[in-house]
Structure formats: C-alpha cells, structure tokens
C-alpha cells in the first residue's frame, strides 16, 4: 500500500467515525427538540410553544423522578469507583490479583438486564436468599412483605448498577494500570515504607484516575438514564425519569409524545448535570487532598481497607454468581413454591419450549454484533491512527462527539433516528440495524482502545520507520500486532454492547430483525420467569464467548510472545 493511500484511508476512517456518530445523534436530537417545543406536523403540532414544558412541570412526582435519576447515577458510580480503587489498592501487590481479575472479567459479559433480573430473583421477598432462610431461621411460611427491590430510595437500583459497573471499571483500570506505571509507583511507595492501600491512594491513584475519567463519565451517563435496569430494580411511585419518559413515549395517547420529548430533553439535562456535579466533585477532592500525599503518613486504614476492599469485591462476585445461579435454577424449575429452596422436580421443558425459537435469533445477534463491532473497530483504529499523523490528540469537541451516544440518553434520540431513517428512505432491516448498533458500539470500542493506542511507546514507530518500514507497514506490522490484546478486549466489549441493544434493534429493524435480546425482552414482558431465565442465559452466551476469545486467543496466539501478554 502506498504511503499516501494509507494516509487517505486512515483519514477517511476518522471522518466516517465522526459522521456515523454525529449525524444520527444530531438528527435524533433534532427529532426530540422539535416536538418538545411543539413542532410535529404529523400530530398536528405546527406552532412553537412552551406548553409541553409546563405540562411536564405539572407532572406529579417529577422532582422525585429527577432526584432518583441524578442520585442513582452519581451514587452507583461513586460506589463502583470506591470498590474498584479499594480492591486494586489492597490487592495489586498480592498474588490474588490475577485470580480475581480473571474471575471478574467474564462478569462484564453479563448483560445489564440479565444481571438485574438475577439480582431481583435473589433478593426479593420470595427470592433465593429469603427461601434459604425460610422457614427455619425467619419463620416465614409465606414471602415477607418488605420493599426490595423497588424501594423508594432506589437502593436496589443503585446496588444493581454498581454490580454491573464494577467489572467495567475494573477492566478499564486493568488496561490503564500499565499506562500509569502502577507497578513501579507501587514499588517506590512500598520501598519508602508505605502500606499497600496508602501507597496506592497516594502514589498510584492520582495517575490512574485521569485514565478512568471518561469511563466514569460513561458510567454516570448510563446509570442516570438507564431504563432496563430501573424497570426491574427501581421504584415505581415515582420511577426514575428515564422510565417515566419511556412510558410517556409509549403512551397510547399520541399527544403525550410532545411532553415525552420535553421529558427526554430534561433527562439529557439531568445526565449533564450529574456529569457536571461529578466534575465539580473531582475538583473539590483534588483541592482538598492536594497536600495529602506529602503528609508522610504511611498507613491509611489498612486493615479496614483490606476488609472493605476484599469484602466488597467478594460481595460483587458472590452476588453476580448467585444471580446467575438463580437464573439457572429458574430455567430448570417446574412450579417452585415458596419457601422451597430448591426447585423440584428439575425439568428440561422450559429449555425445550424455547428451543424452537432461539437458534435464529442467536445467529442473527452474532452476525449483527460481529459486523457492527468490526465496523467500529476499523473506524476507531482509523481515528486513532489519524491522531498519530498530527502528533496530538484531537480537539476536545471531536472527543466529546465520539462519546455522544453514551451521553445522550437513547430514549431521547431513537424516535428522531427512526424519523430520519424513514425520511432518507432507508429500508428497515439488517443493514439499518447494524448501522444503529455501530453507533452504540463505537464509543465503547473507542473508550477501551484509545488510551492503549495513544500510549503505545512512539519509539516503536520511530524504530520501525528508521528500519525502512512505510507508515502502512508500521501500522499493520508493528502497531496492530503490539496492540493485539487491547484490540481483542475492545472487540469483546463492543460485541457485548451490541448483544445488549434492544431499542435500536427493534426500531431500526421495524421489529423484523429479531435477536436473542429482542426475544428475551418481549418474553420478559410476558412475565414467564422460566422462559425469561432461559433467554437471559442464552443472551449471556454470546458475550461470554466473546470475552473468552478475547482473553484466550492472545494466550494461544502469543504463547511464544510473552512480552505482548504482560499484564499489570
């Protein structure tokens, strides 16, 4: 490949990435802003008006909805960050680190909804824990009447979100640790007499945190606008704002679309406010702790920290595994009355009942996820490679554009996206669905890959160029092979994101494309817990395979290239 062709292709990929994200999100947002201010001719809205905003402010419980979304977003992110930081701080130097890391990474594959369903199975009044304790310990012959999940403070929601975010943040941290030379920093700190947790917090965390900032923002944005998790674990009177917006959007009274659009914009504002609050908090903490690393104290709640860090991560692992176990039990259960702790008899009937229906949706999901991930991977590597030409990261504006689909709540722009699809005469179907998935996959792939790509030692490139390699040669034969592990991890993350998409699949495919997730969600709406469990487990299968490949392939391919496998 000639040097100029390579440069042109790479630049093209960068632009395509921006167009793929920017145009649909902008169009989608426009499709929400216009009705929010009264303009939607198909429903007879021809005049700009603020009346729908007034209707929104008159909604009963609106303040509670906003507060729930805002608080659950920030609280779950803070909790997840604390757990991950404590865990790394306490275990980074120990030999348990690798084991727990291997145990946790696959948990990332558990889709949000499946994790939430599993958690609800586990902790509800008739759930597994309550069954195990009844009646011998609790005296309950019938399920007790406590309010969890669905408690009015959103604690169950926060717990569920935290469970999902911990593996994600941990994976992002693992990628970032070598970049901030965590091992070396830790060695210096310990040689200077610092206990592990104090050493980590004072010497490593300040370098690690900037690398976690964007993933954290993504987590806050997701948590403050989640619909699927909130539906299962969140309170109902009032629900978090995103759930209410989705209900309004689906209200049979089509005139509600106007207010729903205003609500979607409000949701966007709530997410932005949550992000701004976090940013402010960051500043305050940084300022308050400016002199802290230099106060010379060598210990920082080491014993409590070890207990908390170990305990919290243990609890996360146990809860997620127990949720999975609950799913498996329900998928094999016949009628399973309270308080029996074990379903009797076990039956394959639920699986057989589902069997006819899940082969095609599985294949369809794999195809869509595979192609969308490939598109995203190509565009993201292109965009990152283009950065190396300019020798500087892109302007902040472009950066934010890449994260837009994560930050703009999807309930907000999907309706607009369907409008645009129809207007552009794009037939709903496989191609549209793949494109839609790529929009959501791309930011996560970017998130997973960007830091590794940017921090790849530039001397490798310089060395290869000085040995006579062309830019294309350097890209294909040096940079990509060096990045095998991060590339595969990014692909697995992207694939898992694609598998989890419900609304884009439904809307852009006009419902004609059915994936394992659309099947699972529609079946879940029918409330057959056994079939739901079967499909939730199936939904987990593909991303789990993806992660197994991402973690296993390098070990296999690179078993004679240990230098590329070096893990933190």
């Amino acid at each position, binding site marked *: 490949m000639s040097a100029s062709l390579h440069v042109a292709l790479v630049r093209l990929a960068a632009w395509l990435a921006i167009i793929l994200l920017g145009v649909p999100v902008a169009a989608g947002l426009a499709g929400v802003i216009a009705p929010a201010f009264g303009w939607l001719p198909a429903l007879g809205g021809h005049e700009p008006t603020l009346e729908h905003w007034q209707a929104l402010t008159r909604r009963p419980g609106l303040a509670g909805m906003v507060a729930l979304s805002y608080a659950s977003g920030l609280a779950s992110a803070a909790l997840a960050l604390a757990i991950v930081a404590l865990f790394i701080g306490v275990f980074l130097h120990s030999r348990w680190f690798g084991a727990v890391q291997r145990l946790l990474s696959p948990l990332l594959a558990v889709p949000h909804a499946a994790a939430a369903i599993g958690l609800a199975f586990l902790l509800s009044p*008739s759930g597994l824990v309550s069954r195990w304790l009844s009646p011998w310990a609790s005296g309950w012959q019938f399920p007790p009447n406590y309010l969890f999940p669905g408690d009015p403070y959103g604690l169950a929601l926060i717990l569920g979100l935290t469970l999902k975010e911990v593996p994600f943040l941990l994976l992002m941290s693992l990628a970032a640790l070598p970049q901030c030379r965590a091992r070396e920093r830790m060695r210096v700190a310990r040689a200077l007499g610092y206990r592990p947790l104090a050493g980590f917090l004072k010497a490593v965390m300040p370098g690690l945190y900037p690398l976690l900032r964007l993933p954290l923002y993504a987590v806050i944005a997701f948590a403050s606008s989640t619909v699927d998790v909130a*539906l299962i674990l969140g309170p*109902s009177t009032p629900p978090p704002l995103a759930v209410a917006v989705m209900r309004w959007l689906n209200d049979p009274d089509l005139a509600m679309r106007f207010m729903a659009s205003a609500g979607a914009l409000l949701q966007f504002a709530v997410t932005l406010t949550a992000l701004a609050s976090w940013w402010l908090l960051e500043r305050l903490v940084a300022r308050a702790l400016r002199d802290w690393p230099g106060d010379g104290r060598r210990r920082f709640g080491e014993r409590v920290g070890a207990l908390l860090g170990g305990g919290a991560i243990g609890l996360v692992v146990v809860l997620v595994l127990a949720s999975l176990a609950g799913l498996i039990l329900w998928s094999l259960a016949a009628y399973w009355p309270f308080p029996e702790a074990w379903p009797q008899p076990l039956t394959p009937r639920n699986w057989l009942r*589902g069997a006819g229906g899940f082969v095609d949706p599985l294949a369809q999901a794999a195809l869509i996820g595979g192609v969308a991930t490939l598109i995203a991977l190509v565009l993201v590597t292109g965009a990152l490679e283009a950065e190396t030409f300019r020798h500087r990261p892109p302007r902040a504006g472009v950066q934010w554009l890449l994260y837009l689909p994560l930050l703009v709540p999807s309930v907000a722009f999907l309706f607009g996206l369907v409008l645009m699809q129809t207007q552009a005469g794009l037939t709903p179907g496989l191609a549209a669905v793949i494109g839609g998935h790529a929009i959501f996959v791309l930011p996560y792939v970017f998130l997973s890959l960007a830091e590794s790509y940017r921090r790849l030692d530039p001397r490798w490139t310089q060395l290869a160029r000085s040995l006579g390699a062309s830019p294309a040669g350097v890209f294909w034969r040096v940079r990509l092979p060096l990045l095998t592990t991060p590339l595969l991890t990014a692909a697995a993350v992207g694939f898992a994101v694609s598998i989890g998409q419900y609304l884009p699949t439904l809307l852009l495919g006009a419902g004609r494309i059915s994936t394992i997730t659309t099947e699972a969600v529609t079946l879940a709406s029918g*409330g057959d817990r056994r079939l739901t469990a079967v499909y939730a487990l199936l939904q987990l299968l593909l991303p789990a395979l993806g992660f197994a490949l991402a973690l296993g392939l390098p070990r296999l391919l690179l078993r004679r290239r240990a230098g590329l496998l070096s893990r933190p």
Partner: protein
Amino acid sequence: MKPRAPCGWLSRLSVAALLAVSWPAMAYQLDDWASVVAEARGQSVYFNAWGGDATINEYLDWVAGRMADEYGVEVVHVKLADTAEAVSRVLAEKAAGNTEDGAIDLIWINGENFAAMQKNDLLYGPWVESLPNFALTRPQANPEVREDFTLPTAGLESPWGKAQLTFYYDSARVDEPPRSIPALLDWARAHPGRFTYPLVPDFLGSSFLKQALLGLVDDPEPLYRPVDEADFAAVTAPLWEYLDELHPYLWREGEDFPASSAALRQLMGDGELSLAFTFTPSEPAVAVANYQLPKSTRSYVLDAGTLGNVHFVAIPFNASHKAGALALANFLLSPRAQARKQSIDGWGDASVLAMDALSERQRAAFQADSDNPARLPPGALANTLAEPHPSWMERLEQAWQARYVAQ
C-alpha cells in the same frame, strides 16, 4: 390473477419492469374477495403483535404455517413488548411522509391504542365488513364486535378475541375469595399484603380502577358518556375513599406496584400474593400448565360481573401488503382458527364467533376440551360489564397519579 411471465430472461425482465411501473398499489377490489386472495399470494405480511407469551407465539406460528400452505402468504410475527412501539413506528412513518411503503401490515390492538390511531388517521379502511368470515360474528346480535371501549370501530379493525376481567386465587391459601369490590376491602384487611393491582397506567391497573368505580357508584350511567359531561370529582369520590382505605393493606403497603399483568401473575406464582386478576380468562389455566401458578389456582368472576372487551386487528394506512393483511384477518376469524385459539392447548382466548352462525361440525371444535380446574366455570363469562367511555380512563389515570405518585 397474476399473469405468468413468458420464458426467456429478456421477456421476464421486461414484464418485471412493466409490473413495477404499472402494477397499482391496490389492484384488488374490497368487494371482490377473490381479487384480494389473488393479490395476497406471494406477499409477506408483517403482523405486529405482543410477543410476551410463548403460548400466543406458538399459536401464531401455527397461523403462519396455515397461511403459507393455503394462501401462499408468508406471515412474519413481529414480536412487540408493547403495542405502542408499533403505533410509534406508524407515526414516525407518517411524519416522514411514508404513505405507501409502511413496515407494518397488521397490528393487534384495542382500546386507547386504537382510539389514538383512529384519531390521527393512522388506519386503513373501512374494510372489516368485506371479510367473508366477519358475518360469522353475527354483528347485529353481538354489537360488541363493532365497538371498542364504546367507540365504534367504523370498520377499521376486525374482532379477534374476547377478554374479561377474571379474578384468580390460590385455593390452598384462600377459602373464600371476595365476590364484590366492597368485600375485597374486607378481605384485604384480613389478609394484609396479599393483594395488589398493576401500576396505573398499565392497562390492567387502569382497568381495576374502572372495575372498582363501577362496583362503588350507585348510578353507572355517567361513566358511559364522555367524562367532561359529568362531575368527575363527585362521581369518583367513593373510589378515592375506597383506595385510601385499601392501600395500606396492599402488597408492600401500596408503596410499590407490579409493572404489569405479567408481573402480577409472577407475584402469585412466588406466593407473595394469594389473590390476583387478569384480562385473559384462560391465563390462570395456561399458567398452571406452564408451572407458573400452583395447581390449586382457581378462577372466578365477581358476582355483579366484571369488565369485558374485545380485542382486534387493524391495518395501518400505509401498510405495504394490505391484501395479505386482509387475507390474514379473515383467516383469524375462520372457525378453525378461532376454535384452536379458544382451546386450552392452543391459546385459550375466547372466540368472537357466534355459535349459532356455525355448522354443527364447526361448533363441535369449540367444545371444552379439558376440564382444567383453574379455568372459569362454564357460563361465568356471561356476566359482562361494558367498558366505560375511553375518556374516563385517562382522567382516572391522571387523578390516580396525582394522588399516589406525587411525593
């Protein structure tokens, strides 16, 4: 009939080109059923129907098989989690100016969704009176097949099945279930936390409000006229008084509500509730067969009757395959399809056909095929209360939310 193309790729191509240009969007005539069936052959009909129940999905698989074999129509069941998703799509297509090439050919619909689509001119028709099988419903004698929540269907939607609010309970835990709305309050007091209703504005939750209101007012007459013509506060005062008393004895003391009919049934299966209700009379029996409810489940209807309604199928104004959709709607009304639908092994949804319009052999297929104890006793469904005017539903929902959602 579709002309056969002569041999040779050139002539085939030219005919195809000709067809593409000249074949009109509506070659069939509604009054000539044969022309509908002829045009339907070879079409793919996208039937958007709620996909939350594996039993219903299996029934639709059977329908698809029959339609392919007998009419050459491919039926694709687009599984929805919520009918509103389909309404949204048609709306988006209209907003974008797509008037001929819509993605949805047939929607399973009733009540508010129908009212909304009709009001915004999103439906094709009238066409229902042209279906040969429609006559089997004896519309003169059974006006409910032409009425959807008191709104005339105006030939825009074809009846498919019947629903009636049906209570069910676990007979192992409940000796004598309440048989009226006031009795329900006493029962809840005696069994705190064992009854609830779905979150308003879920369809079933809102229906409970209407059922309770009908059971509490002295004179139901104003409920059958638009809400604006009545003194809403005065008419509904007994309802709020009732709910204020009831809520502390509900599941989770009325602080949280299940999201849907399905979630309600789930809570019954988990033993958290011992009394619940549904709009699908066969649901408890089907759920027992699928291990979701205990074998001791029993169904009944309140002594003074319960709300009943008919559900329909409708064609969007811009459906791409209207002929195929018409053929499918007609097949859904056929005695064979209705009998299988009513059978407990099929789906268990009550037929809309008038038995006296059928031949003896056709009638035989409708005989109760099993005596599942979870089923309603024969004749229970005769006691039907008509749905109030749709405008009441919305006002009741708003008032409920203002009263119980606001903090």
